[in-house]
C-alpha cells in the first residue's frame, strides 16, 4: 500500500478542464521513487508500451509493437496493470482496424497489425461495420464516425475519455494501492498529451517539417 505516495500527489483535474499540469515530470518521478522496485519496473515496462503519445516519433513498426506487447504480457505484471495494458492495446488495435478499413484494406490476414484480445475477432468479422463489437466496446461506433468525419481531435478526446474513466474506476477500487498510483501516472500522461495539443504549435511544426523536407530535396 502506498499511503505516503498517493497522499503526496496533487489533485489531477479531468483533462478537458485542466489548463496546466499539476505536477512536473521531474517532481512526479521523484515521488514515484517511493514505489517498490518491482512495481517501478512494471510501471516502466507498461509505460514504454502504452504511453499516450511519445515525445518524439519512435518509428517503430506494428510488428515491433506486437512483439513488445507479447514481451510485456509475458513479464510479471500485477493483474490490474496487465488489464490496463491489454485495454490500451485493444483500444489502439481497434482504432488501427477502423483506420485500415477506412483506407479500404480488404482484410488483415497475414500482417502483424495489432495486439490484444480482439485481433482474431476483428479479422473474423472484418466485413461487419462494427466488427460485431459495438455492444462490448460502446465507443467503437462513435470512433468510426469521428474517423469518417476526419475529426482527429474529437477522436483523441473520445479515446482519452474512455481511458480516463477506465483508470478512474481502477483507482476507486483501492485508494492507496498500486492501482491508484499507476492510474494517476497514466492519467497524468493523458493530461500531458492533451495539453500538448496546440493547433498553432502544430501548424508551425508542420511548416518547419515541410521547410526541412523541401530544403533537403533542393540541396
Amino acid at each position, binding site marked *: 500500500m502506498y*499511503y*505516503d505516495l498517493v*497522499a503526496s500527489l496533487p489533485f489531477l483535474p479531468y483533462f478537458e478542464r485542466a489548463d496546466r499540469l499539476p505536477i512536473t515530470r521531474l517532481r512526479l518521478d521523484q515521488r514515484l521513487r517511493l514505489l517498490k522496485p518491482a512495481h517501478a519496473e512494471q510501471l516502466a515496462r507498461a509505460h514504454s508500451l502504452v504511453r499516450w503519445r511519445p515525445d518524439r516519433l519512435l518509428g517503430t513498426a506494428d510488428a515491433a509493437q506486437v512483439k513488445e506487447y507479447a514481451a510485456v504480457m509475458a513479464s510479471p505484471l500485477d493483474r490490474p496493470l496487465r488489464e490496463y495494458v491489454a485495454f490500451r492495446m485493444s483500444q489502439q488495435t481497434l482504432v488501427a482496424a477502423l483506420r485500415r478499413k477506412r483506407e479500404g484494406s480488404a482484410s488483415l490476414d497475414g500482417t502483424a497489425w495489432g495486439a490484444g484480445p480482439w485481433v482474431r475477432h476483428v479479422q473474423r468479422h472484418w466485413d461487419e461495420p462494427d466488427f460485431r463489437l459495438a455492444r462490448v466496446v460502446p465507443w467503437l461506433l462513435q470512433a468510426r464516425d469521428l474517423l469518417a468525419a476526419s475529426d482527429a481531435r474529437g477522436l483523441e478526446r473520445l479515446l482519452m475519455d474512455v481511458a480516463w474513466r477506465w483508470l478512474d474506476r481502477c483507482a476507486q477500487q483501492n485508494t492507496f494501492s498500486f492501482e491508484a498510483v499507476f492510474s494517476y501516472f497514466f492519467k497524468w500522461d493523458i493530461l500531458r498529451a492533451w495539453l500538448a495539443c496546440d493547433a498553432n504549435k502544430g501548424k508551425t511544426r508542420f511548416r518547419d517539417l515541410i521547410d526541412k523536407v523541401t530544403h533537403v530535396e533542393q540541396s
Partner: protein
Amino acid sequence: MELTLGWVGLYAALALAAIGSMIGCLRAGMAACGAMLEVESGFGRFVGVAAMPSSQTIYGIVVTMALPKTLTVANSPGIFALGALSGLALMVSAIAQGSACAASINASKSKPEVFGISLAPAALIEGFAVFAFVFALVLAGSLPK
C-alpha cells in the same frame, strides 16, 4: 485450560487494540507525511488526525483494568469472551479508522475546506469502537467473582 483462556482474555483486549492502533496510525501517518510534501501549511492538523486511531489502545487498557484479576474456572470463559471479542472489535476499528483518516488527509490536502466533513467517517468508526468499549465495561461488572 479455563484459566489459560482467562489469562488470554485478560490481555487480549489491550494487545489486539494496540495492534490495531499501530496499523491505523501507520496508515494515517504515512498519508500525513505524503500530504506534507504537497502542502505549505497545516501540518499539525494532519499529525493530529493521524493520531486518531490511538484511542482504541486507551479503550483496551480500560477494558483490561475493568476485568477481574482473580481468575477462577467460573469466570475465565467470560473473561476470554469479553477480552478477545472487545479486543477484536477495537483492533478492526483502529485499522479501519486509520484508512478513513488517510482518506481524509488525502482529500483535505487538495481541498482544505472539506477537512472537517471528511473526518465524519473516522468519527463514525470511533463511535462503534466506543459501543464495543462501553458494553465490555458493563458486562465486565456482571462476571462471576
